[in-house]
């Protein structure tokens, strides 16, 4: 196993870069980070729309979210892969295809987290903001959402973990992320699939387990801060 790592570590980490496109673990991470980065604002908008008092805003977004959540990510990837080019009129490369699919998919899940967060804040906060004279949107922006986002930090980290794992589906459209690279290494070495995929599994596990612990720590930390305040 050591010589496997010794030979292929750079390929595993960055793909053919700098002699070809960036790939490997670096691509996986970039994809996950960008995915969450773009999905977050979209999820925020969707989440707010989801609890909007206006039906014309609430219904279409709710429908979209239910459709996406009722569909496997693989389907969304296929849609993005085949549908996006016919929409834009030009071929989209694998990276942007995968990123689009991830953003749409994650935004739907984040929207539900945000919806639950908003509904968990309590009517009194909105009422007191509105009674001071703030508009509905100002009450959201200045009073409700800051509390929601703070409360959802742990969920956000967990969603990042999910996104990292989801990027492996890029394999299916030939995106050279870390799973794809691992398969290539396996094809080259041919005789040691167990070890190659063990290494791949370990990589995902260390990354995701570490982040899960961070989420757990955040959750406890935030909880303690509220408790300390309440008892002070």
């Amino acid at each position: 196993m050591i010589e496997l790592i010794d030979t292929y570590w750079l390929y595993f980490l960055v793909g053919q870069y700098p002699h070809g496109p960036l790939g490997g673990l670096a691509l996986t991470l970039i994809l996950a980070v960008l995915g969450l980065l773009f999905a977050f604002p979209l999820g925020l908008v969707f989440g707010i729309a989801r609890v909007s008092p206006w039906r014309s805003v609430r219904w279409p977004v709710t429908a979209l979210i239910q459709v996406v959540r009722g569909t496997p990510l693989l389907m969304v990837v296929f849609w993005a892969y085949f549908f996006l080019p016919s929409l834009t009129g030009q071929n989209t490369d694998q990276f942007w295809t995968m990123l689009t699919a991830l953003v749409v998919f994650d935004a739907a899940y984040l929207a539900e987290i945000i919806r639950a967060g908003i509904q968990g804040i309590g009517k009194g906060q909105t009422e007191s903001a509105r009674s001071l004279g703030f508009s509905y949107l100002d009450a959201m922006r200045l009073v409700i959402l800051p509390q929601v986002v703070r409360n959802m930090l742990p969920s956000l980290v967990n969603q990042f973990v999910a996104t990292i794992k989801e990027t492996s589906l890029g394999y299916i459209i030939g995106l050279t992320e870390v799973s794809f690279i691992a398969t290539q290494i396996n094809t080259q070495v041919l005789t040691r699939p167990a070890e190659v995929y063990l290494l791949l599994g370990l990589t995902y596990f260390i990354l995701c387990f570490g982040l899960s612990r961070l989420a757990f720590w955040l959750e406890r930390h935030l909880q303690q801060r509220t408790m300390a305040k309440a008892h002070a």
Partner: protein
Amino acid sequence: MIQIEKVNKWYGSYQALVNVTESVAKGEVVVVCGPSGSGKSTLIRTLNRLEPIQSGRIVIDGVDAYGPHVKLNAFRSHIGFVFQQFNLFPHITVLENCTLAPTRLRGLKPSEARDEALTLLARVGLAAKARAYPGELSGGQQQRVAIARALAMRPPLMLFDEPTSALDPEMVGEVLLVMRDLARDGMTMVCVTHEMGFARDVADRVLFMDEGKVLERAVPSEFFARPEHPRLRQFLSDIRTPFAEAA
């Protein structure tokens, strides 16, 4: 200051307010009392449109609250509202709670808003807590901050919806004192409260509500000494001698 004309409100088939007609003069302090479910909180919440009404008219400071041209946010910003549960914003400091609306809605500079807020916090006895977060304060302190926060919009009218009902008994006094000072400064106030001592000492007029109707209205001395309506007599005797029936 406030004219309420033939206001009716239903929750589904349940009528919460029945033909309520009432008026409050500028500078007047009116206490609304009555058993729970009598509609007193509903009434006060219709005044700044936290609750819609189905018929009738409410005019505050010349503005028809449910009229077609009312600018709801501006209208509400001229009415201070204090909640039973305080509803301070927990993610920002006491000072920021008191400057958020003035900077955003009254267009004050941060430094001006800060000075005003500190003056108001001093007035409710909490200048020292300006940098604390709401969660670090006692219930009584939170409610006093809530009063300061409402006052920061300089409303000519303050509404109190059972401001002391969620407090531990030893903290009721500090909130009532702040309210009394406010009344003495000439603020127009409508208070839903069970604090009969406050009603007796501070109110200009006391209303008694039951089943969505205002059954009696009188100056405090009359109200307590010569209650006319049998429901009010029952209510007052229940408050005064809670163990009468058991004994």
